């Protein structure tokens, strides 16, 4: 019985390791929800013979995994935290790869009237003025940090009954917003890919402050000797290559382009 179990387990373990090399990368939920990974990973495997195992977590946890050396690289979108990560020596540098954007989602009827706001800050001010229900990620993720900075430029983070911090990932927060009929800040990809939209719709987008820069950080082998520095360097070059750029720029979801490639290529 026990032997058989171990054999089965062996198969399961073996089936996960088809490529010659494998490395672990922590990515944010919003990146994974975009579906871009499903396009890029097979190409990476084909070009580099490298299997990239994705750990889909919040930005905070991704940075934490990188600091502990439990992943070889991270792909996140929270500039201040990334710079701290580099400053603390856990990565030698951060490499900007691409950006997408955040959008304001709300009930189609738009009781707060954010659709014709002139800026993201004004959109939030109107929600506050109308005291319309708002769902905040509240999980210290990149999206949450962006939302907090927007509220600060709109006159401070609310502390009222209509402001709901759910402390959950993007999908769970969107589910909550649908249930409450509230407003929420989401990345465009998560929203387009979200399967339970209810009567919510995309109300506001386009302010440059809503741009969401993704950066790649390879964990510094001088801090964590066991990380696969060679592989993560190879992956970095691939992600910043023109070939990756074409794939990223041409990726569409529901007929919309999601990402803009902006890495500085060395080729």
């Amino acid at each position, binding site marked *: 019985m*026990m032997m058989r179990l171990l054999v*089965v387990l062996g198969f399961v373990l073996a089936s996960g390791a088809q490529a010659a090399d494998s490395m672990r990368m922590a990515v944010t939920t919003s990146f994974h929800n975009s579906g871009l990974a499903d396009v890029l990973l097979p190409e990476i495997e084909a070009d580099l013979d490298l299997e990239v*195992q994705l750990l889909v977590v919040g930005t905070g946890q991704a940075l934490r995994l990188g600091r502990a050396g439990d992943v070889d690289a991270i792909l996140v979108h929270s500039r201040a935290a990334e710079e701290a990560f580099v400053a603390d020596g856990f990565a030698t540098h951060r490499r900007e790869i691409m950006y997408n954007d955040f959008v304001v989602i709300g009930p189609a009827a738009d009781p707060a009237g954010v659709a014709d706001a002139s800026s993201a800050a004004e959109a939030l001010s109107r929600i506050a003025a109308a005291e319309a229900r708002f769902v905040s990620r509240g999980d210290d993720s990149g999206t949450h940090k962006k939302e907090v900075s927007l509220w600060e430029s709109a006159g401070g983070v609310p502390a009222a009954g209509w402001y709901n911090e759910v402390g959950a990932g993007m999908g769970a927060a969107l589910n909550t917003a649908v249930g409450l009929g509230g407003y929420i800040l989401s990345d465009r990809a998560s929203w387009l890919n979200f399967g339970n939209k209810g009567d919510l719709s995309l109300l506001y987008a386009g302010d440059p402050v809503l741009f969401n820069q993704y950066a790649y950080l390879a964990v510094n082998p001088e801090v964590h000797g066991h990380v696969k520095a060679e592989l993560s360097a190879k992956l970095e070059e691939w992600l910043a290559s023109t070939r990756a750029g074409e794939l990223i720029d041409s990726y569409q979801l529901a007929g919309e382009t999601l990402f803009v490639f902006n890495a500085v290529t060395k080729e």
Partner: protein
Amino acid sequence: MVDLWQGLSQAFWLVVTLDAELAEIALRSLSVTLTALALGCVIAMPLAALLAVRRFRWRRSVIAVLNALMGLPPVVVGLVVYVMLSRSGPFGVFGLLFTPTAMIIAQMIVIVPLMASIAHQSLRELWAEYHDLLISMNVTQSQKVRTLLWDARRALLTAALAGFGRGIGEVGAIMIVGGNIDHVTRVLTTAIALETGKGEFALALALGFVLIALTILVNLLIHWLGQTEREGRW
């Protein structure tokens, strides 16, 4: 309600068409939990028997702690195992984090107290019944333990099934230590959490129904095996 029906029909089609990805995830769920169960039984059952037959100073405290640990929150187990197995942790050198092995360890920690507690309840009753006879026969400690484990095997099966149920349905711990990596550590429960997060309720429900069906199937199978073995006996 619409989601529920969609989920049911989707589950049906996933199973009928033998969806490769589903099969892989379900098989991994089974192998992780069954391995954790097998190893967990090896620890929990003799421990329960020893607690029943041995008198030592901290026995009552150990039993009380064990009973309390039955309700151990898996998320906490996950965090502790994560910290232990992390590259920065004491067992980091083994590189076990985000592997099925890490998931097995976490699940064992979750189910061992549960199984040991349930097993101990029935072994204690059996020991009260057997005590005088076995003492009179001058049995050794290990003969005592073996006799109790063998004669209480039906009750121990119940304990093991409880452990299986808790293990296969557990998500908090294995999400943290396994990482839900596609094709490596994704199992039914973490896939359900993922699909729920994507708002794909129908698919999440479909996976949930598959999980429930799998649990029932394993229970029936084990009961049936136990039945044939004991046909017309105890």
